[in-house]
């Protein structure tokens, strides 16, 4: 009976036995990570405007350990640095977000955005090459026109697989402020893009127009108190989307109700705990990421110190709150001074919505099991993990006596931050970006 329970226990939380599958060093700081709908492709964007796509090796490979190793599939330069002449401002090429489109045919499509411009990229494979010219002979020399006595249609011969990325659409000039989110609608036809004050709705085929659906810019800019920090479309209801703000509120809007969704349908805000109020309360309440669960019933928000799960049916408070690094609460002053308090951490759900993950400092990342309320801290770094080694749980010591293997709060490296993480949509594979390094971890199967 006991053994059975342990087995159940292990399969119930398999993600807590993790071994590193693959690590990759990129040329620049990684700024976004995203799996596609099947999980076979993983896209990363970096500060230099490059997109690197990794592909999972298909099963049936003759390598014994590859239960699906990720290898580089395609690399391309998505955005270049630009200069806004009217405002004398540089536009960074850093990729803020990547979102995949559902697969329509053999090619793959993704949207990538920097601060101002969104691009739709098509990634396709070519494994054939044309051979046979009419005007040239085998050595490449031009033939005499008078000596062409028959016509030759080129024949396609197989060649090494080549993966090409081509920009299919460029959606530009619609945002005055910096784009922080893009999200594809469940109708597979439209998507939204959000900047600090506005949210626009685009049609994937139309680049010269977009509809503005949310505009929170006050008539007098001096009255500005709140900005939009993230936005997402509901996974299956085509008319619903949410956006979060710097004041810790989330608004759910219904595009059916009106053309301009300035009036929200639902307003989510947790009442503030007066005892924990401080100078930094508002800053740390700012929501850096909002994600719907796959089921569409819940949504998760990340603020500076915690992750909250909300039931869409209840606006008054979240149903679950998880402390990510509560030990930082007493350090807020110094974190404010070194600007870390403004770091924007992302969060993600696993495929079955029973676990969530988010990043922290010192290359630590945290996972929470929603059913058992167990949590774990792991580190993504080369020093502490060899290939196929099982990751050891980490612990931060807050009190006086530091145990062996624990790390004290003051020794945490705040330059090593994990802002971007992604979870495979179906399996227990996670991607963690630690500055220039991408780690892919997988749950160990016995």
């Amino acid at each position, binding site marked *: 009976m006991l053994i059975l329970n342990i087995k159940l226990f292990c399969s119930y939380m398999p993600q807590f036995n993790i071994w590193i599958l693959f690590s990759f060093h990129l040329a620049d700081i990684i700024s976004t990570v995203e799996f596609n709908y099947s999980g076979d492709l993983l896209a990363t964007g970096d500060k230099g405007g490059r997109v690197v796509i990794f592909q999972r090796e298909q099963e049936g490979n003759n390598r014994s350990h590859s239960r699906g190793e990720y290898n580089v599939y395609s690399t391309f330069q998505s955005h270049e640095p630009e200069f806004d002449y009217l405002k004398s401002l540089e536009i960074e090429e850093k990729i803020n977000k990547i979102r995949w489109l559902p697969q329509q045919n*053999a090619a793959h499509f993704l949207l990538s955005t920097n601060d101002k411009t969104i691009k739709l990229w098509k990634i396709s494979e070519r494994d054939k090459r044309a051979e046979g010219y009419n005007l040239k002979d085998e050595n490449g020399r031009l033939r005499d026109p008078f000596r062409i006595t028959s016509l030759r249609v080129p024949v396609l011969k197989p060649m090494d697989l080549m993966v090409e990325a081509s920009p299919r659409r460029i959606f530009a000039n619609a945002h005055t402020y910096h784009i922080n989110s893009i999200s594809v609608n469940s109708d597979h036809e439209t998507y939204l893009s959000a900047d600090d004050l506005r949210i626009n709705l685009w049609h994937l085929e139309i680049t010269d127009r977009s509809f503005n659906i949310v505009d929170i810019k006050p008539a007098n800019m001096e009255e500005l108190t709140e900005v939009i920090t993230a936005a997402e479309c509901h996974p299956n209801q085509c008319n619903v989307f949410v956006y979060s703000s710097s004041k810790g509120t989330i608004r759910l809007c219904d595009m059916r109700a*009106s053309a301009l969704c300035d009036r929200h349908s639902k307003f989510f805000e947790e009442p503030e705990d007066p005892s924990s109020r401080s100078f930094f309360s508002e800053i740390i309440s700012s929501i850096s990421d909002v994600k719907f669960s796959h089921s569409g019933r819940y949504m998760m928000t990340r603020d500076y110190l915690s992750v909250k799960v909300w039931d869409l049916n209840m606006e008054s408070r979240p149903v679950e709150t998880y402390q990510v690094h509560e030990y930082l609460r007493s350090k807020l002053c110094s974190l404010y001074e070194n600007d870390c308090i403004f770091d924007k951490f992302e969060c993600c759900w696993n495929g079955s919505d029973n676990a969530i993950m988010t990043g922290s400092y010192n290359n630590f990342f945290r996972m929470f099991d929603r059913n058992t309320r167990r949590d774990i801290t792991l580190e993504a770094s080369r020093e502490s993990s060899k290939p196929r080694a099982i990751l050891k749980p980490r612990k931060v010591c807050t009190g006086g006596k530091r145990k062996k293997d624990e790390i004290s709060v003051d020794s945490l490296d705040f330059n090593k931050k994990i802002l971007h993480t992604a979870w495979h949509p179906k399996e227990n594979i996670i991607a963690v970006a630690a500055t220039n390094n991408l780690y892919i971890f997988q749950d160990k199967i016995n």
Partner: protein
Amino acid sequence: MSKMAGADGDDSLYPIAVLIDELRNEDVQLRLNSIKKLSTIALALGVERTRTELLPFLTDTIYDEDEVLLALAEQLGSFTVQCVFFFFVNLEYLDKAVESLRKISHEHSPEDLEAHFEPLVKRLASGDWFTSRTSACGLFSVCYPRVSKSTKSEIRQHFRTLCSDDTPMVRRAAASKLGEFAKVLELEYVKSDLIPLFAALASDEQDSVRLLAVEACVSIAQLLPQEDLEKLVMPTLRQATEDKSWRVRYMVADKFSELQKAVGPEITENDLVPSFQNLLKDCEAEVRAAAANKVKEFCENLPADSRETIIMNSILPCVKELVSDTNQHVKSALASVIMGLSTILGKDNTIEHLLPLFLAQLKDECPEVRLNIISNLDCVNEVIGIRQLSQSLLPAIVELAEDAKWRVRLAIIEYMPLLAGQLGMEFFDEKLNSLCMAWLVDHVYAIREAATCNLMKLVERFGASWAQSTIVPKVLGMASDPNYLHRMTTLFCISALSEACGQEITTKQMLPIVLKMSEDQVANVRFNVAKSLQKIGPVLENSALQAEVRPVLEKLATDQDMDVKYFAQEAMTGMYLF
């Protein structure tokens, strides 16, 4: 491999060889060029080689740019069905390919269709990628009419499956082709098969699918006999007018006139009138604006015997409220059609009920609303005569003429000739003349230019003697304005008016001024003198040309400024004065 006509020493195959090679050139334009000449290549290769070599090659090079694929799909129209089939598995631009297929389908015998077309359609309808399923939707209606009964039944089944496909894209394609498919179906099947599908799509969870069902509604309503409409179509239509999504309601408003014609007078009176009222009062401004746009058309198409009652009792109250709507686009849409109601309602009703509305909109704070009223004055003129409005019209025109936004000023200038015609010469001289003059010295060049054109049209309408007494003196007076731009405007006006004013005025009054300005301090003025002389030359007598114009041009041809010299020489050449 057949040897083409052309022994050694003949380069006739060369151009085709070039085309073939360029099919895979790095340069997009060259590939595009070759694709556009595909039929030439095919002709040279012959049917067999085209089918076995060329087409397989083309299908596999589908990694191409959008424009090339589009051009390719267009070319398919000249190929047989068998050839076309190769493209469908991978081609991204299936809609264009489908269009080609539809064009050629009627060239095929029914047997051919059964043998090749229908299996193609079947293959597409059950394709893995939803793009092929989407394109199948476009092909059903073209092959249905001419295939066998059993095949027809199969096609209907396919369509049914696609209407409940998992992917929104496929359901959207099915919904958009619903109307077209209905047109080729036998009536019994429209009722038994298509109506349930229509109802299902109209209640789809995706807004984008329900939207398209509204369009289909019109086609289906047109096909069914009157007695079936109430049971089969109206429930769905009623549902759409009350849909939670404003976009669906907008679609209904947008298609309202077509719906009205399709359902007939009785249902219009009982159902559509209340629906139209609701749309005019909708909570979403976009819907109200779309409905407002249809007010005139809707009213015009009401049955003659009940038209006036319906309008007075049901429509007019809503219209009155729209005049003071909070949203400017709604008011603007209304303003563009409201005048049209006067012809329907007749003189008395117009004076009593509509006139106050016109006047209210004429004073609206939004310039577009005012402009829309002014641009439709001719309808009112027919019914009650414009004098009724002129009291309020004038302040409105003046305000628009002096609006801070130049595009608003530009719009009113463009209506000026029309207004002048309707208001008459006296009214114009009294009230509007000074406005037209003021525009000539506006800060914005586009306004000055439009004002010049306006004067020309006015002279065409009112005649040369009117011009001589009212505007010519003022125009010529600007020739001594301290601002060189205004002096140049005089020259542009003269160029524009000379033909309409005629030889005498041009020679006696305009020419001396122009010649005098050849000594202007500013070079721009001087070279425009040369250009003006060239323009008015044809109106002048030859004696004047030789005696007066030529010496001046010769002098300008030796001017210090290069541009003056150039234009003077051009003028002389152009007028054969060298």
